């Protein structure tokens, strides 16, 4: 299994897509450094790019990769090896290569500018977002045999979590603004990995004062160690449930 992961990982690292992704992140980060010298602001600007781009790239690349390796997966399944091992190997190879591209693309400029401190959260949440959306993309890939359909479902996940969910959340907040909504919104955020990532980053950046009373409430919760553990474990759940469901479907699927 280790050797499968290793060689598939090498294979992916040599694809142009991963190269472009890394270069894109490098250019973005360097550009933001050119625009502003305040590291906090650079991280904030990057965050907005990362929250949109990382999930999108993860879902598109993963589904395309899955369907391009379809015959290869088939051949591997004809070998004396468990379906789960093949699935996990593919997942780990795709996820680790995307994470590596992300860490290099974002981390390298920061290292160059000597600003290691403010970037921890950005790196960790970005890696988690990658893992979550690779899981979701694998889930949509095993649901259907049609590449176009799978990409469609995967993009729908992205669209939903990046745009639609926030719209619904805002609607809830405005409609019920007469009631105390802190706890409800806190609960609702748990159902969206992108929002979770956003909140974790914002609160580590210490600009929650701009968000008024709710911000203070969140700061109280997410800023504490307990809150951080809570949100990280929620993100972990977001990695695991699509992955487990996908693995379950995959181990009974006709290829």
């Amino acid at each position, binding site marked *: 299994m280790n050797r499968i992961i290793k*060689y*598939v990982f*090498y294979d992916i690292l040599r694809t142009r897509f991963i190269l472009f992704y890394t270069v894109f992140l490098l250019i973005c980060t360097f550009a933001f450094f050119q625009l502003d010298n305040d590291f906090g602001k650079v991280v904030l600007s990057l965050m907005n790019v990362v929250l949109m781009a990382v999930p999108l790239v993860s879902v598109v690349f993963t589904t395309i990769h899955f369907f391009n390796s379809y015959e*290869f997966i*088939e051949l591997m*399944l004809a070998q004396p090896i468990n379906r789960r091992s093949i699935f996990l190997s593919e997942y780990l190879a795709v996820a680790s290569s995307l994470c590596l591209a992300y860490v290099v693309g974002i981390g390298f400029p920061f290292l160059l500018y000597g600003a290691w401190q403010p970037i921890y959260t950005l790196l960790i949440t970005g890696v988690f977002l990658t893992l979550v959306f690779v899981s979701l993309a694998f889930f949509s890939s095993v649901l259907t045999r049609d590449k176009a359909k799978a990409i469609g479902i995967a993009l729908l996940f992205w669209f939903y979590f990046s745009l639609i969910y926030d719209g619904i959340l805002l609607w809830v907040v405005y409609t019920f603004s007469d009631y105390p909504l802190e706890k409800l919104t806190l609960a609702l955020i748990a159902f969206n990995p992108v929002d979770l990532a956003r909140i974790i980053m914002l609160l580590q950046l210490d600009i929650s004062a701009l968000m008024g009373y709710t911000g203070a409430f969140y700061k109280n919760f997410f800023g504490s160690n307990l809150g951080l553990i809570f949100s990280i474990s929620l993100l972990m759940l977001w990695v695991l449930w699509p992955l487990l469901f996908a693995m379950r479907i995959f181990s009974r699927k*006709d290829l």
Partner: protein
Amino acid sequence: MISIDQISKNFGALPALDQISLALNAGKSYALIGPNGSGKTTLIKGILGLVIPTSGHIYFDGKSINRDWKYREKIGYMPQIGRYPENMRIGQLIDMMKNIRQDKPKIDEDLIDAFKLYKIYDKRIHALSGGTRQKVSASLAFMFHAPVLILDEPTAGLDPVSVELLKEKIIHEKRMGKLLIITSHILSDLDEIATEMVYMFEGKIQYNNSIEALKSETNETKLNKAIATLIRQRELLASITD
């Protein structure tokens, strides 16, 4: 060695396999033939556990293959289209396969030598022609001394010299008492390497007997003529009963 007991497979409403029963025994070489879409590939995938039958069972050495994977160490499989990760090197691919079958220390490198693949171990898959990929697939299938060999269109796309090399290897393996299952549309190739014939049509087995018997039944000396005659006879019978 492999016994297939009344398996059916539906893709949606379409039946791909319809109540198929078949016994495949060691030491014999089966030619699996039939028009496109007759269910040959589905049957092979069923034996490999890639497709799970809607009903019925497949037994390998007396044990049901359902949810088992261990039995596949006794199968060497050469797929119809050999698509591998594009940026992988041939050497890496072979190394990976060896790693999966660690329990087989003895490696059969006859075909790797015959096709001179060791010369291009450093080449990446995307730089290979279709024929070379086919050679890689063939080498991988024969590498682990598997007692069962399943070859899906083994000679398609190979140059004449390589076809002969592969056929020699197949005949050699057959003499060693292995079970071979070969699908092909090139009947003249099958004539030399197969002893039994399984003819499939619309998900059913229409004919299952030795090639010798088929030839004497139809009074033909060549397999392609014999099959053409067989199909014509069947069609004639069908038109009469209609």
